[in-house]
């Protein structure tokens, strides 16, 4: 088995770099999510790995074999990979069973083995009753499972998934997320998963690579990405962070609405305008003046909404910055009231500006 490595991978169409100097090391047996908004280059990166697209610069290695470089590209059919497409790409003129065994037949495997493997995968994906149907006669979720079965039966070294759940309805999507992860754990191939849905990435991935404008903004574990965003883009895209801006005072403090705010994360340059992210859940809000005044900012309630399990506030600091704060549902402070916000220093992350 093998790891997948991208080194300085670049794809240009004309003068636009759709994928721009992307480097990523994917350990064998890991599940990596390429996460980003549409047009960020994640699908092109996946198609580069699959070999449908040739790189303009950089290279892709599987194990110690070079499979893509500007001079030399192994065609997709020689890469020992499987892929699940956004459209599922089930062949409408073949039955479910014919679709699934297609890859095995190409590998010249004997009939008996094919039969065994087919039965096994049909059982795993709960498709046994549908084997003789045509794709047009299946529901979205069933088609999805056929696509999974077709990709998995060839026991690929690497599995590529291109937004595989985006055509499913919400309930089914949730269910299939865990299914993808369960099958991955069962077979342990290296998986690259492309999605624009952060909760999909959170539930399935070992490693998330957040992409924007053709570049990887940040790669790390789901906890890393969520708790320790390194850029404003990642902070805003993953969960919905408040990003406040203030002038740097020293290496660990910025000036926010007249209050010196202690932060962690990137080293702050004195005098530089520095973005700082903090999650709505991490801000403590009180109607009474607090005991201590470190990292405490006075503000006014602009509006608040009762959401059942919690309460969603919009508050405004003295300098006009608006912040979202999520509190317990009981903390009912009327609109227009003065409040004090405690921004715990460990939760204020200075970002690269």
């Amino acid at each position: 088995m093998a790891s997948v490595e991208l080194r300085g991978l670049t794809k240009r169409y004309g003068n636009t770099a759709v994928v721009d100097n992307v480097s990523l090391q994917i350990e064998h047996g890991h599940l990596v999510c390429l996460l980003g908004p549409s047009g960020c280059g994640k699908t092109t990166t996946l198609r580069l790995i699959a070999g449908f697209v040739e790189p303009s610069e950089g290279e892709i290695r599987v194990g110690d074999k070079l499979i893509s470089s500007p001079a030399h590209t192994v065609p997709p059919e020689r890469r020992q990979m499987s892929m699940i497409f956004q459209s599922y790409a089930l062949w409408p003129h073949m039955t479910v069973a014919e679709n699934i065994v297609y890859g095995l037949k190409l590998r010249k495997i004997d009939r008996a083995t094919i039969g065994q493997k087919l039965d096994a995968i049909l059982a795993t994906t709960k498709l046994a009753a549908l084997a003789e149907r045509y794709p047009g006669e299946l529901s979205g979720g069933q088609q999805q499972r056929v696509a999974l079965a077709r990709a998995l039966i060839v026991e690929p070294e690497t599995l590529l998934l291109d937004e595989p759940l985006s055509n499913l309805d919400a309930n089914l999507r949730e269910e299939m997320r865990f299914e993808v992860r369960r099958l991955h754990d069962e077979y342990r191939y290296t998986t690259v998963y492309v999605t624009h849905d952060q909760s999909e990435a959170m539930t399935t991935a070992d490693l998330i690579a957040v992409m924007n404008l053709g570049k990887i903004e940040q790669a790390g574990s789901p906890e890393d990405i969520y708790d320790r965003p390194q850029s404003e883009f990642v902070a805003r895209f993953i969960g919905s962070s408040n990003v406040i801006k203030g002038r740097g005072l020293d290496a660990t403090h910025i000036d926010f609405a007249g209050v010196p705010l202690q932060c962690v994360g990137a080293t702050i340059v004195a005098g530089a305008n520095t973005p700082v992210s903090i999650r709505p859940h991490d801000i403590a809000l009180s109607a009474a003046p607090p005991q201590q005044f470190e990292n405490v900012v006075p503000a006014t309630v602009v509006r608040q909404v009762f959401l059942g399990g919690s309460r969603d506030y919009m508050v405004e600091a003295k300098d006009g910055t608006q912040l979202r704060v999520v509190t317990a549902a009981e903390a009912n402070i009327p609109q227009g009231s003065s409040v004090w916000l405690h921004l715990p220093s460990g939760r204020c992350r200075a970002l690269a500006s």
Partner: protein
Amino acid sequence: MTVALPARAERRGLGIDVSKPVLYGFAALLCVLIVLPMSWLLIYSFSDGKGSFTLNNFVTLFSDPTFLAPLLTTFIISTSASLICCAVAAPMGWLVARTDLPFSGMIRALVTASFVTPPFLGAIAWEILAAPNSGLLNKVFRSITGAEPDVHVFNIYSLPGLIFVISCYTFPYVFVLVANSLDRTPGELEDASSILGGGRWHTARRITIPLVLPALLAGALVAFLQAMTLFGSPAILALPAGFHTMTTKIWSLFQYPPKPELAAAAALPLLVITVMLLRAEFMILGRRGYSVVGGKYGQPRLIPLHAWRWPIFLFCLLVLALPVFLPYAALLNAALSPVATTFVTFKTMTLHNFEFVLFELSATRLALKNTVILGSATATIGTLIAVIIAYVTARQAVTGWRVLGFLATAPIAIPGIVLGVGLFIAYTRPPFVLYGTLWILLIAFVTIALPAAYQQLQAAFRTIHPELEDASRILGATRLKSLWQITAPLLRTGVIATWCFIFVGVMRELSAAIILFTSETKVISVLIYDLNEGGDLGAISVIGIGMLLITFAVVIAVNRIPGFGSVRFRNS
């Protein structure tokens, strides 16, 4: 476990290696098909026949009364036919698409029937119906009124008669554009007007009609073009009446002594006007994108016609009697009757005409053989070229694919008779002396068939998601194997339909064939034209009915294929 990848270096992207020659090869082929005859046409139009440059051809064309008259006649015919077509087809299209007119599906089918009727066949049928003396309608008139034998109400051999017959088989172009445009215009656009207080008729006037106006305008242009480039109907109806249109004039220049230079000069304006009008149609229709924005739309609410439903329906049937019921009845009558221009009775009914055509007429066998050879060859070659070009452009497989797509559609702007003249000039000289052989007809037919075949197959490719091929490749199939196992089976119906479609198109082609045929290379459409000159209307009717049956079979089959609904034959 290690990755089982081949160690030896692979040449990059197998597809690129094959596709370059494919691109250049096909671009060259298309250039020969289109550029060569058109270049010769241009050169000849500025030549005096001895190889020197001259403008005399054009001076003659625009000063000699024997050329000016056809020019004017053609303009009158095209303009009036276009106006008549719009006046008839636009209301009918609206009635069918937006009102509760009964049996609207049947009306659409009848329009399709007149759409696919070869215009020259329609013209001959109208000869049987409305020739001044022998015409069946005139006979009916005389028997009702007891008028003298030389009195007639209809004379099809006249300018109005010709305009009428041309309109009969041209109005479907306008109808289809208008009805399609209305079908695609979402009902919500009209509902939005209603909810804001617009009454039904107000909405129709302020919303619906402006939305279809571009389609109507485009339809008017297409109808004008069709009327201008038609050869069969004017040759059948105008020549006996003693006047010419541009197409018959060009044809007459090939009668002895041939004047190909003048013919080339006369063909050039037709070509230029066609290119300009198609360009205009494209611009008009291209701007209409706003009426087909995405999203899900419901069925439009139909406007109730109330008490007018059935009278209007009957009126529509009456209108459709002119291009469909009456001519078809006339052909059937002529086929079964011993004399084409008398009404058949059970007593006089005979199969003599069938016997004559099938077993006695020696020309039939040759023409039939030539047509089958040319039809199959054209269909096979044309489909093959179209499949490859459609694949290249649909998958954007090579850089420069746009050029191929453009070249494949270009012949649409070359009227059949113009192509005939160009090919005649190009292939009567060394190194390619093809005149007098079936090859020259094959080249003409392939060129004529290519645009429609290409557009059909491109539509077929568009319904096949590229990921279907990708999925096959990532599982281990090569590009060729993927094409064979995935794309080919999915494309099969489309390819077969295109093949049949081209075959039928060849059968109906007259305007290029009439310039290029010789006695040994006569085809069925030319045979019909010859038989008409000899007054053999019964034989024509038999052949014509056979032709219509084959055409209907193909059209009905093709219409069942998704995405193929909008195909149109070229009339000639």
